[in-house]
Structure formats: C-alpha cells, structure tokens
C-alpha cells in the first residue's frame, strides 16, 4: 500500500479537474471542495501515523530524473500544517468569494495547489521537489490573477518572472550538483560528505545558486518584491500564499537543501552561510521596518511576512540545534498566526469595504470577535509571552547567541519592536480611536468566516501555552541532524 502516499497529492488534483471541467452549481461545488480537503487531512494523518520510511517510485527515466516520494518527519509536519490550514481557508473562501460565475476555475486551481504543495512535502529527492516546485508556480498563477484587472495581471507577470528566475537558478544548481554527486536524495546530513574537499568553490557556487533560487519563493531580499504586489489576489489566496503554500514551500525547499542535500557541515566548510546570513538579517530588518510605512493593511502584512520569513531562514544559516528548533517552530507558528491576521483583514475588506489603516478607526467595536482575534495573533507575531511567537523567537535568539553572534538577537529584538510598531497601531486604531460616544451595532462576519478566525486564534494561544510536545518532537529531529 505504498501507493497511499500518492493519494493526498492525486485526490485534490483530480477533484480539482472535476470542479473545473464539470462546472457544478454553488452548493455541489462547495460540497466537493470541503469534502476533498477534509478527506485529504485524514489521508495525511493516516500517512503520518502509519507510513514510516515508505518509498513510492513514480517515474524513473534515468538517474537524474528519478521521481519518488518518501514522507519523513519534517515532510509529515509540513503536510499536516498544509492540509489542516487548507480546511480553514476553504470555509473562509466559500464565504469570501461569494457566488460569482467564474469561481469553478478558481476552486479548480485552489484544489490543485493543495495537491502540489503536499507533493513538495512528500518528495523524496531534490528533482521531485523541483518538479512540484515549478508546478506550484503554475497552479498559483491563476489564483493571483483571479481579479483579472490590469493590476492583477501585472502582479501575476511579476510573480511568474520572479519565480521562474529563481527556478532557473535552482535548476542550474541542481545540474551542477548532480554532475558531482550523482545523487539527489534526501539524507540527513547531506549527500555531499567528503566530496566537498575536492572542489570547495564549486559547492559554494551550488549552495549560493540553490539558496538564492529557492529564496525567491521564500521572499529573500532582494527577491521579495513579488510578494507585496501579489497582494491584489483575493484574501484567502494571499493568506494561503503568504502563510502556507508558496512561501513555506520555499522555506521547506531551503531546509531540505540545507540539511538534507548539501548538509550543514559542507556549507559550513565552504563558508557560504556567511554571505546568506547578511541577506537574511537584511530581510528581517527591512521587512518589519518598511511595514511601518504601509498604509494598506494587506501590504502591511505582506511586508511583515517578508520579515517573519527571515526569522525562519535564520535557522537555515546558523547551524545550531536550538536555532533549528526555533526556526522550525516559527515556520509552523507563523503559518497559523499570519493566516489569522489575513483572515481578519479579509473580513474587514469583505464586510466593511475598508482596506486602509486610517479607515478602520473604531472597527473593534463593530467587529469585536474578529478584532480580538486579530489582537491575539498580533501579540503572537510580536512575540509577547505567553504566546507562541515568543517560544520560537527565544530558541532562535539563543541559537544565535550560542554561536557567539550578538547581532542576531539584537536584530531579532529590533525587528520585534518594529513588529509592535506596525501592528499595535492597527489594534489601537481599531479599538480605541474613533468617536467614543457613538453607539455602534455589532456586525460580525458570517460563521463560515468567523469560526475559522476564532479557531485559529485559539490554536495560537493553546500552542503558546503548551508548546512542549512540539518542541520535544522537533528536538528529536534536530538531534539526528546535529
């Protein structure tokens, strides 16, 4: 039954084509989409629990084009994250997208993207991952340009250009690497090993090519500018793009490359991480600082994402086990936190037609539950204890200090200060500004939208209070690597 590994990838793609080609009516389509995502979660859970070290060969043309799936612990965690958050987004987007005509196409690509993302999670070697990675660009492109306006098309073009530019670099890196190692499978500690002593500079080049190439999707400075422009997409899509699918796939691929293909000892030997560390620190600082300048709420969150992804990438350039734990935790926590924030902003956009910071004065009195969830998620993102953001940042900073690098915690804290500076004004404007004496009637979003928001906010709090089992699980994988 190794075939079961392929099912979570195949089922969403098939049902996506069913939705796209048979063009079902509103209710029927919703049934298909919801049931697909829920079945998929169960499948993923089944694989996580019962499939250890299963290897499923898809195609083998030659040694290079050898496509197979092999879920390991990291992939499984990522798959759980993706398939769980996809359900929330499904419910949310059913309310958000409304009953328009062309939505079958939207949901078709929406489901295909889930399959492709799970493919990234389960890939067993770099070339399989690369294949799904390219497919992800193609399947998310129609989602980005869903509005069809001039701006959306331009943003879509930008997204494509950036993504393919990165993919080209990745491909070049893969070919160079394969020419040396003849092996691209994921092995903890890497496949290069002592080969690096033969040709140090070549491996440095491979590392930089792969890092910058995957870094495009992970919004590494200076390849980040597709992300704020992709904000023209409808909110569920931006939430997915920013919290789960695209950027996290970039991060995931980077993690695979760093710890499972090249191996951190090899990278440490070539010294490549010294260059990438500068870019990562710049990413952290720039994202959070420029977010203060954004008046548009979605753009604010987009820049915030850039900065938070920098936190996660920090774990990929400083090779310490506590940094690894912190980075991995932050990848998960940032997903749940950022998706909550986007959902809240999307609810305001959808129901109140307000997108700018200056317009939302007093909205906390009108949509209290939504805005309280927003505040909870903001505190998580800033990293105020006892929320989950604090836990991950704590491990990251300790990891940086263990390396003797004082710059890392300083930049982390500076960025946390900026995070507070761009999120707290939103909260205080929503709750404490505006006409205080005016009685406002409460009008919350519909349950399809509100329930995912509240559930996600609750998950954030629970993860903040009880992160210990998660920490222990990740620590176990970290022990294998270090």
């Amino acid at each position, binding site marked *: 039954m190794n075939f079961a590994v392929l099912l979570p990838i195949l089922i969403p793609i098939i049902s996506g084509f069913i939705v796209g080609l048979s063009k079902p009516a509103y209710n029927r389509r919703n049934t298909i989409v919801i049931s697909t995502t829920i079945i998929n979660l169960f499948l993923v859970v089944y694989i996580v629990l019962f499939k250890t070290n299963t290897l499923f060969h898809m195609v083998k043309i030659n040694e290079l084009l050898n496509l197979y799936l092999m879920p390991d612990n990291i992939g499984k965690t990522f798959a759980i994250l993706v398939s769980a958050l996809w359900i929330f987004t499904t419910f949310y987007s059913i309310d958000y997208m409304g009953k328009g005509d062309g939505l079958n196409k939207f949901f078709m690509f929406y489901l295909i993207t889930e399959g492709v993302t799970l493919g990234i999670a389960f890939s067993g070697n770099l070339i399989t991952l690369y294949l799904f990675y390219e497919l992800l660009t193609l399947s998310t492109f129609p989602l980005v340009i869903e509005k069809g306006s001039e701006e959306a098309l331009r943003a879509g073009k930008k997204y494509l250009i950036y993504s393919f530019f990165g993919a080209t670099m990745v491909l070049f890196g893969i070919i160079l690497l394969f020419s040396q190692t003849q092996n691209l499978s994921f092995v903890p500690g890497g496949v290069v090993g002592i080969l690096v002593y033969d040709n140090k500079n070549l491996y440095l080049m491979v590392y930089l090519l792969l890092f910058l190439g995957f870094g495009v999707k992970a919004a590494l400075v200076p390849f980040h*500018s597709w992300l704020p422009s992709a904000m023209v997409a409808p909110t569920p899509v931006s939430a997915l793009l920013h919290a789960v699918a695209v950027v996290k796939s970039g991060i995931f691929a980077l993690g695979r490359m760093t710890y499972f293909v090249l191996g951190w000892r090899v990278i440490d030997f070539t010294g490549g991480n010294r260059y990438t560390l500068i870019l990562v620190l710049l990413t952290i600082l*720039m994202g959070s600082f420029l977010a203060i300048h954004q008046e548009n709420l979605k753009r604010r969150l987009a820049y915030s994402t850039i900065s938070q992804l920098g936190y996660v990438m920090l774990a990929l350039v400083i090779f310490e086990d506590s940094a690894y734990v912190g980075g991995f935790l932050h990848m998960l926590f940032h997903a749940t936190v950022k998706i909550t924030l986007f959902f809240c902003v999307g609810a305001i956009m959808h129901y109140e037609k307000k997108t700018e910071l200056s317009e939302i004065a007093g909205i906390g009195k009108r949509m209290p539950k939504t805005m309280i969830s927003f505040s909870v998620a903001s505190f998580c993102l800033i990293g105020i204890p006892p929320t989950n953001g604090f836990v991950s940042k704590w491990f990251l900073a300790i990891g940086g200090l263990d390396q003797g690098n004082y710059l890392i915690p300083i930049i982390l804290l500076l960025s946390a200060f900026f995070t507070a500076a761009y999120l707290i004004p939103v909260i205080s404007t929503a709750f404490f500004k505006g006409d205080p004496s005016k009685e406002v009637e409460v009008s919350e979003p519909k349950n399809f939208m509100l329930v995912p928001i509240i559930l996600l906010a609750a998950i954030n709090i629970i993860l903040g209070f009880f992160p210990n089992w998660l920490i222990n699980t990740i620590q176990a994988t970290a022990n294998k690597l270090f």
Partner: protein
Amino acid sequence: MDRLLLFILLFPTITTSISYFVGKRNELYRNIINILTTLVNFLVILYMYKYIKEGTLNFQVTYVMGTGLNLKLNSFRYIFVLITSFIWFIVNIYSSQYLFNYIHRNRYHFFFMVTYISTLGIFISENIINLFTFFEIMSFSSYPLIIHDEDDEAHEAGETYMNMAVAGGMILLMGIFIMYSYTQVLNVSELYLVLPRIGPIKYVISSLLIIGFGIKAGIVPLHIWLPKAHPAAPTPASAILSGILVKTGIFGVMLTVIFLMDKDFYLSLGMVIFGFINIFTGGILALFPVNIKRTLAYSTMSQIGYIILGIGLMGLMKDHGYLAVYGTMFHIFNHAVFKVMLFMGVGIIYMITHELNINKLYGFGRFKPILKITFFIGFCAIIGLPGFNGYLSKTLIHHSLTEYLHDFSSPIRITVEILFTLGSSITTAYLLKLYISLFVEDNSKYYASYRKYINKRALFPMVISSIIIIYIGINPNIFERYFFSLYNIFSIDLHSVHTIQFYSLKNMFSSFLTIGLGIIIYLKYVLPNLRQEKNGHMDYFDKTRNWISIEENIYNPVFKFMFLVSTFILRIFDTLLLKIAAYISYSLRFAANIEFQTYPNPMDKLNSMIYSFYIKFKDRKSKKTKKEHKLKDKIKESYNKPHMKINLSELEGKIKDYELNAKENFKSNIKHTVESGKNIHIKEKTVNKIKDSEKITTIKKDFDETKYKMNSITYSIYLVGIVMVVVLLALIIFNT
C-alpha cells in the same frame, strides 16, 4: 499549601472572565464579583503568612510555556504581594463608584483585573521567563487603563507609554537572552551562584536588565512616560500606576542588583547616584506643574529615588545593611499606602469638578473636613513628619546612609548629608504648595459641601489608608519581627542587627530640620517666584514649559533621524532589483533606438503603412475610447522616440550657411560692378551670374544625390560582399 500560589493567580483569572460577561448585563454584580475576588485573594494572602514565617512556598508546573511555570513566595516577595492585594482591594472599592460618568467601564474593569493578576504573577515568579511573561502582560494590559478617556492627551500619553514599554521589554529580553546563553540557568535563586562569576559580560547583562526594569520604575532618563501617563489616566488607574506598577520595576531592579548580582559594588554605587538624581529631579520638577496629578507623578519619581538609594545602600553595606533593607522595604510599603491615598483624594476632587488645575481648584477643600483630614494625613506621611509612617522609613534610610558614610572623610559626609536633607525638604515645599492652595486658600466658588457627590465607597478606602498610616506611625515596631525574617534572605549578619529607636530626639530633630527647610523653600522660592497676578488671584504658572525636555529635544529628534536614515537605506534594498531591471530595460531600449541612418529609410514608410493598417484593424476590433487611444499613442511615441540621432543635420546646417555666404558674395559683387560703372553687357553677365547663384541652392539637391550615390555604393559593397561570401561558401562546400 504550595498550591495556594497557583490559586491566587487562577482564581482571579476565572472570576475576571466571569465578571467580564456579567458586566455586559449588570454593572453592580460585576463590581461585587471584582471586589469579592480581590478580598478573597487578600485574605488568602494574609493566611499564607503562616507558612511564610516558617519558610518558602514553591510551586512548579513543568509542561507549560516551554520552560515551565515556577512560582515561589518568600518573605521578601511576600511584602510586594501583600501590598498589591491590599491596594487592589481598596482601589477596586474606590473605582466601583469612580467611573460613573464614563463609557467602556466594562473594558476598564477587565483590564484592571488582568493587570492585577499579572502584577501578582511578577512578584511570585521564580523563573525569570515567567517573570518576563507577567511583566509584558502587565505592560500591555495597563495600556487600555491609561488611554481610557480616548482623548488626544490620553492617546499621546498612551503612545509614549507603549513605545517605552515595548522598548523596555525588548531591552529586558536582550538581557535575559545573554544571561541564559552564558549561564544556562533561569531560576532566580540559582542565578546568583553563576552570574557574578562570568566575567565582565555580567555588567552588560545587569545594565540591560536594570534599563528594562528601570523604565517601569521611572529612573531618571527613562521616566518620560510617567508624568504623561498619570494625568491622562483615570484616577484609580493612576493610583495603581504610582502605587504598584512602579514597584514592579523596583522589584526587578532589586532582584538584579541584590539577588542576581549578589550585591555588586559598582552597580550599588550606581544605584546610590541614580537614587540621588531621582530624588532631586523628581522633587524639583514637582515644584512647577499646575496639574495636581502631574505634581504627584513627579513626587512618585522623587519617592522612588529613596527606594533606589536604599537598594544601593543595601548593596554597598553587604551583610551589615540591615537598616537599608528595613528602610527600603518599609518605604515600598508606606509609599504605596500614602500615594494611593493622595491620588484617591485627587480623584474625588476631579469627579466633582472635572478639573485638575490648581489655579481653578484653589480653596476647594476648605470646608470639606473628611477630605481635608485624610489629605492632610497623607501629606504628613509623605513629608516624613514624626508620628506618621513616612517618617519611619525615611529615618531608616537616612540612618543607613549615615552609617555607611561613617568611615568616609568629613567633606564627603557633610556634602551627602546636605544633599539628602535638601532633597527631602523639596518634598515638603511642593506638597505645601499643593495643600495650601487646595485646602487653605479661600474661594467662594466652592463653599458648597458637595456631600451628595462624595460617595461613601470613595471615602472608605481613604479612611482605611489613613488609619493604617497613623497606626504604623504610632506603633513603629510592629513589623520588626517580620523584617527580622527578611534579613536571612538578604544574607544579613544577624549579629549586627539592633533595635531602632525611632522617636529619639536626634531623629525628630533631623526630621523637623528637613521640614523647616522645606517651608523656607516654599516661602522664599515658590510663593514669590512661581506666581503671578491674574484676575485678582495669584495664579501659579509652569516655568518648566520652556525648559529642555528630554523627550522632545533629545529622544524624538534622535529617533526621527534614525528612522529617516534607515528608511532611506532599506528602501534602496526594497527596490534594488526593480531599479536594476528597469535600468537594464531602459538602456536596452535606448540602445535599440539609436539611429545611424541619415536619410529616410525606405522601409520606414512601409512600416508606418503596415502600422497604420494595424491600428485601423485593431480599432475596428476593440471599441475603446479616444482618450485611451491618445494615451496609448503618446506612450508609443515615447517608446519610438529616438533618444539619440547620429545624422547629418549638422552638415546640412553647414550647407545652408554656405548658401547664404554665396548669396552675400554675389550681392556684394553686383554692388561692386554697378558702382564701378561697367557696361550693360557686363551687367547682363552679372544678371546671368545671379541666375547662376540661384543654381547654387541646388547644391543641397546635389548633396542628397551624392548621399544616394554613396548609399548605392554601400549597397553595392554589401552586395559584392554577400556574393563573395556565397562564392567562398560554395568554394568551401564543394572543395571538401
């Protein structure tokens, strides 16, 4: 009984969440729940004294919040916990009637209770991360209290408070990061074994911690939020801010200097210096404001100065510093009681008049005996009049200062002595200003008694506090046994401890000397210099308005400059790739549009014809407005516009010049011939020549022709070249 520690945190958490939902329906029940909660908590904490006497309470949960929850209560922490629960209880009673005229009362009460829980948490957390957690919750939950009124002043104060609180939290966290990285220990009671032995980095750590806590404590260059937040917040909130929240900062500073760093000499010396700076800055600044709450806020800073001075002395005197321990801890308790009481008195005045300006309130309390008496008791306590509790703790701090200076040379001793007396006397001066203008001056506006406005629930806490003040003042030694148990925790040599005679002649004399000096300052400086005649009344005016303000003249410009610079630098990185791409595409287009032809290209016409057909064809297809077309054409024009043209226009200009010159030449020739009077034949000839000169204009045509010829030459060269290449290729192909 260790679980009681969890109880005093969890019980208010549960009741607060209940009371929040109850409060949406019924305000009375909410207030009752809140008051009962704080009462029960207070009683439980009183009951815990039984166990504290014998040892410490310790409670641990390992599986939460990453590092686990580790709570501890010993007699050092107990005094903070006790004062917190007591003050919260009476302020809760007070605020149940205070906020009658305000909206969002439910929100206020909710955050009031959250602040309460987190403050208790700060004082009983043993793990430094737990401490930081509660500290941050406290910082954020007190923000809605400060900006409760939601007016511009409140928002401005709230912004300053928030920036300072977040920055303070970050600095504190940085200290904790480095500390953990070096020591791998998080428990306060274990850190003192490791931290003092890790080399000079410990000073970096401890100064980061002190700055982080010091922002809350209001240590001088970090105090700027304090005088802003107090007047902006509603009175119960400012009472809490001044009475308890500032003490959380003090608690942290004390923890760092005394416990974590094991009474380090340099830090203690620094604390003594900062203590004096605080006493003086707070005291002097308190002389000027006309807003009552602002005066009290500066007064808090000044009183905090005594506590910081006491902490410094504790550190300097090592195991002989029992007087400093006694005095400091006692002053923390006393200051909380009398400052909260003074604020509550101000709150009553504000509720009736909605005014905090002493120029409008003068003479308000002249005929209100209860208010007057309670305020007077608070006033006496804070200036340290014998018989009130403030006297006791100030005397103790004074004693320990003299004892420490015992071995120093007399100039230093006398200078410090004078400084201390002067600093204390300023307290008398600014409170005398407040008291006399509020309760002694005569103002016919406020003859009415306003008895119906003053609720019993407002006076009850004030009366309780004044009873406590006097009771402690009369029985100065009631806490002595308790403090004795404290000395162990501070590792004081118990042989050095003696009983203190508070009401000895010498102590009384120095106290009266201080107060007398204060009265002199009031009479000689405050009255003549700070008032001016206005509408028949001597109004106070704020001299400090034009003084240098740390916030506006130092912090704001520095941060603004840094903000702008970093914006500029980071913007570059933000748009770096886009700029490069745009530049490359621009330069490519530029290169593509350079024209080397000097004649109209025959293909151009064809192109333009094809293009016009294309446009027409497209027009027929897409029905777009003319405007869009114009715009598009413009864009196209700009695209097709050559940016550089290497052509022969210069040569053409030269030709024109040549033509003109030729004409002139001929004209002059004609003139010459006419003048010389030659015959008509010649004239005719010249006429012909003029006709010839017209022919010269055709030079341009000739030039064009030559150009065409040249071109045909180049074309022919090309042709020949191509033929030759073909021939060559053919040769190559057929030869091989």
